[in-house]
């Protein structure tokens, strides 16, 4: 079947707890998601067969749509009335793809190897490097303790020194690592380092591991070449890792395109969306245990996963990493004591499925979410950087702007679009809460559009985009994204509260105009649901909207279920240190945005 002929598509995402199926149908030339079903994932005992959950989820779609899709365990070919043209799937069940990576120098090949594995959808358990500060025996102990699904070994530029990478290979051999699944097979090791060391590596690891040699992921200091190694990771994920997971060999026979690790599919969709619109995009998926962050800036894709920042299993770690004062700063309740907050968060950790029943409890979860999003973003910024160790040619003008190599690629002023997903963002009782959590966590500058993927459809669409970009993008725009609106935030700090910092005018395509002003220290909400419009924003002297201090900008915006949020708190914004002042400010902002019922914001 050629790509043009796709009319009906069934797609599943096998998550750790739930398998979600969606049906996509082409109607009047446009692809739409029409029905969806879900069922518990069946990777663990007593079922130990992922296809059972998949069939259950598809059966639910059959029941809702009235379209017969299954003949036993097979997908029926599309005959116009029943069946589907293709079935595709992603998977993160069983803990996803867990990898360990190694590079010669931590900040150079170590970081490139980490970016390579993360971009392929893996969880990076550890990064080994010659200069990681651990003694040889500590490295060996670490390799032995962790049982990754596979290992990526890099190091050295092509033709450069072989010593470091050979040393790492020797440590690896001494550790004699075992894969996580299937103790009987050899650990797959991908070698993507100095091409001159390939023979030595074969000699050392050839017998004891399942060694795969590919192109160097850092052929020279100035160039990263991550794709060949990423492809190898996907191949091994399918050939080795998936083969060991319960029921996956069966699932692999059912699908019409290779199964993708869920985060890799989300990354692919983020990239396609960014490219189609020429946007800089930030996408986040905040779960119970982990937070994934994806970004595309100036066409460069990056992904990070913060393995211990999440809303239930890891919520206690959010508190540990952010510190209690950072959580407390978002609460309008002055009487909550440290002891009480600590116990509440620990109780959420040990009983992760409970939900907030009161506004106070909801505010605590929202505070934890902001901090988890903020910390995961910090980690992302630290990895999404230019190549380190590159010699830079400087002109005289550069001398005044002393930037080192390895600067973060993320610039919130140039960020066009934020997409949030995960329960806390997708299912907030009020959509404004989702929007505000993302604004507080990321502090976007200038004009930034914000949306949520309310049923986490990006994995399905990512894998589908490999076959039909049109189908994936159609559904993405029409059914996946819930547009919240646009945040308008001048960068700068005001000398005093209440001074005017922005004049703005919004013009819709049919010529309707709306104007207003923004004063420092204020948050303003303007309901606005036009799918697109134009904003002309003239910041005051000392404030920047992207064109320089005091310069007017004109930008494309989107309305949505929330509308426009004008953030006059300044950038960077700081919260008053005094508790009473802080609570008064929060109440003023939350009331202006109608975030929580006013009566429920007091102790």
């Amino acid at each position, binding site marked *: 079947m050629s790509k043009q002929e796709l009319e009906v598509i069934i797609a599943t995402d096998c998550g750790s707890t739930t398998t979600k199926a969606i049906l996509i149908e082409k109607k009047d030339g446009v692809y739409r998601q029409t029905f969806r079903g879900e069922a518990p994932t069946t990777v663990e005992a007593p079922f130990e067969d992922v296809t059972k959950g998949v069939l259950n989820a598809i059966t639910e779609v059959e029941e809702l749509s009235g379209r017969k899709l299954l003949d036993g365990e097979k997908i029926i070919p599309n005959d116009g009335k029943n069946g589907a043209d293709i079935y595709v799937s992603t998977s993160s069940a069983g803990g996803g793809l867990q990898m360990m990576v190694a590079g010669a120098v931590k900040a150079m090949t170590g970081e490139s190897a980490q970016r390579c594995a993360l971009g392929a959808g893996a969880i990076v358990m550890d990064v080994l490097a010659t200069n990681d500060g651990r*003694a040889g025996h500590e490295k060996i102990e670490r390799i032995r303790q962790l049982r990754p699904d596979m290992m990526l070994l890099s190091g050295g530029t092509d033709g450069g020194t072989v010593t470091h990478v050979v040393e790492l290979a020797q440590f690896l*051999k001494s550790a004699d690592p075992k894969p996580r699944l299937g103790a009987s097979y050899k650990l797959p090791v991908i070698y993507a380092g100095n091409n001159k060391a390939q023979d*030595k590596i074969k000699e050392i690891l050839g017998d004891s591991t399942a060694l795969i040699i590919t192109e160097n992921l850092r052929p020279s200091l100035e160039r990263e070449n991550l794709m060949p190694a990423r492809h190898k990771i996907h191949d091994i994920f399918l050939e080795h890792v998936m083969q060991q997971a319960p029921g996956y060999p069966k699932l692999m026979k059912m699908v019409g395109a290779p199964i993708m690790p869920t985060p890799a599919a989300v990354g692919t969709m983020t990239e396609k969306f960014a490219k189609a619109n020429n946007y800089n995009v930030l996408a986040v998926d905040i779960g119970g245990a982990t937070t994934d962050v994806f970004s595309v800036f100036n066409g460069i894709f990056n992904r990070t996963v913060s393995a211990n920042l999440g809303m239930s*299993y890891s919520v206690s*770690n959010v508190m540990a990493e952010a510190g209690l004062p950072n959580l407390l700063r978002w609460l309008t309740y002055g009487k909550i004591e440290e002891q009480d907050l600590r116990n509440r968060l620990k*109780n959420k*950790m040990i009983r992760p499925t409970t*939900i907030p*029943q009161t506004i106070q409890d909801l505010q605590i979860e929202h505070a934890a979410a902001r901090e988890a999003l903020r910390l995961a973003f910090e980690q992302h910024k630290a990895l999404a950087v230019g190549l380190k160790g590159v010699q830079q040619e400087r002109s005289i003008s550069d001398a005044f702007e002393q930037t080192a190599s390895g600067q973060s690629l993320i610039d919130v002023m140039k960020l066009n679009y934020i997409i949030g997903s995960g329960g806390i963002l997708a299912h907030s009782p009020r959509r404004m809460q989702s929007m505000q959590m993302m604004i507080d966590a990321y502090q976007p500058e200038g004009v930034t559009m914000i949306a949520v993927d309310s049923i986490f459809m990006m994995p399905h669409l990512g894998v589908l985009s490999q076959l039909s970009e049109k189908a994936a993008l159609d559904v993405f725009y029409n059914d996946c994204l819930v547009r919240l609106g646009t945040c308008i935030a001048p960068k700068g700090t005001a000398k005093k509260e209440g001074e005017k910092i922005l004049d703005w005018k919004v013009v819709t395509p049919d010529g309707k105009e709306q104007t207003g002003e923004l004063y420092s220290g204020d948050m303003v909400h303007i309901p606005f649901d036009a799918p697109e419009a134009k904003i002309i924003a003239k910041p005051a002297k000392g404030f920047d909207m992207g064109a320089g201090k005091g310069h007017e900008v004109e930008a494309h915006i989107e309305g949505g279920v929330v509308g426009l949020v004008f953030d006059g708190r300044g950038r960077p914004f700081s919260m008053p240190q005094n508790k009473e002042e802080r609570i008064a400010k929060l109440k003023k902002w939350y009331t202006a945005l109608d975030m929580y019922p006013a009566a429920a914001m007091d102790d």
Partner: protein
Amino acid sequence: MAHAYTPGLKVMPCTVITKKRLLPIPGKVLAEKGQQVDALDEVALTELPGKVFSINVANKLGVGAAEVAKYMLKKEGDKIEKGEILAETKPFVKWKFLQDLFKSTVEASITGTVESISTVTGQVLLREPPKRLPIKSYITGKIIDITPDFGVTVESEGTFIQGIFGVGGETNGEIVMAADRPDRDLLPEDIKDDYKGKIVIGGRYASLATIKKAIEKGVHALVVGGIDDRDLRLLLGYDIGVAVTGTEKIGITLIVTEGFGTIPMAHGTFELLKSRDGEKASVSGATQIRAGVMRPEIIVPGMPKHINEVKRDQGRGWIEPGDPIRIIREPYFGILGRVKSLPPELTVIGSESKARILEVELDNGEVIVVPRANIEVLEK
């Protein structure tokens, strides 16, 4: 009849408990199928490969990496003693005293074997002797299955109680009741001198002072309703970020049956433990709440005095009107009641979310509404 799925902790007077006791790497199984074993018996044994240490011999001798082999006095696989000379240079001088003066030597930093000699890096890897790693039966019972090279499955009939959270690993000891009621705080003075090596059962709460006193007295395990997170942090010296525990070395195994804060131990749990007072128990604090839930546990082999029937775990995971439950989230955290009804429709709750709820009747007759996600069924 309306019912709904709910998780719950197991509190079973007498059930069949099976435990897989497996080595992390292959080894030798020491027990046979059908054999009766005591909790402290070793059932399998393996040897962990020793730690590896590296020495850059090329650097130390001041020679090229490719030349290292010719200066080595030991080959790969040779046994070495700490301080023994591994490699030395041979100066081209005639007299021995001058040879001794100019030669450089490299000594072994550990006792063990030479693992590898690299002529690329000039590095020599030494490995310590293997470590003995036995695995004990943990519970008293009968071996019902053997996993060749890895271990056994032990089966036992007895009392099985799960806690919600624990720290510290497996231990054993005699149960002793240190609190007379489930709603009483366990105070430092309640920890007596003769509690050494015992499993001490408290009431609703133990403070840091109480836990420290128990450690000081050599108590093997402490079981209470609740503790404060701040105390846990002070005890461990760090915050537990993710609930994966069991390897802490704090000199005691601590099991919390209800949660963080001051929460009376469930009546059923307390009474059941009381009925096994003075008997030997196996206890583990290991908790893992992600991917394959594991809760801390107390296992007492044999039947309690008033029980003569073994109830197998039915794996019942639903609730019905009349079931005794505990609320596990604010604003009613820790309160007990009975399910009154289970309305099927989604209901807007106090946080403005829509959720499936249930009506709970409290002991004083008051009826409250709680999301179904926020309750736990207590064993009847």
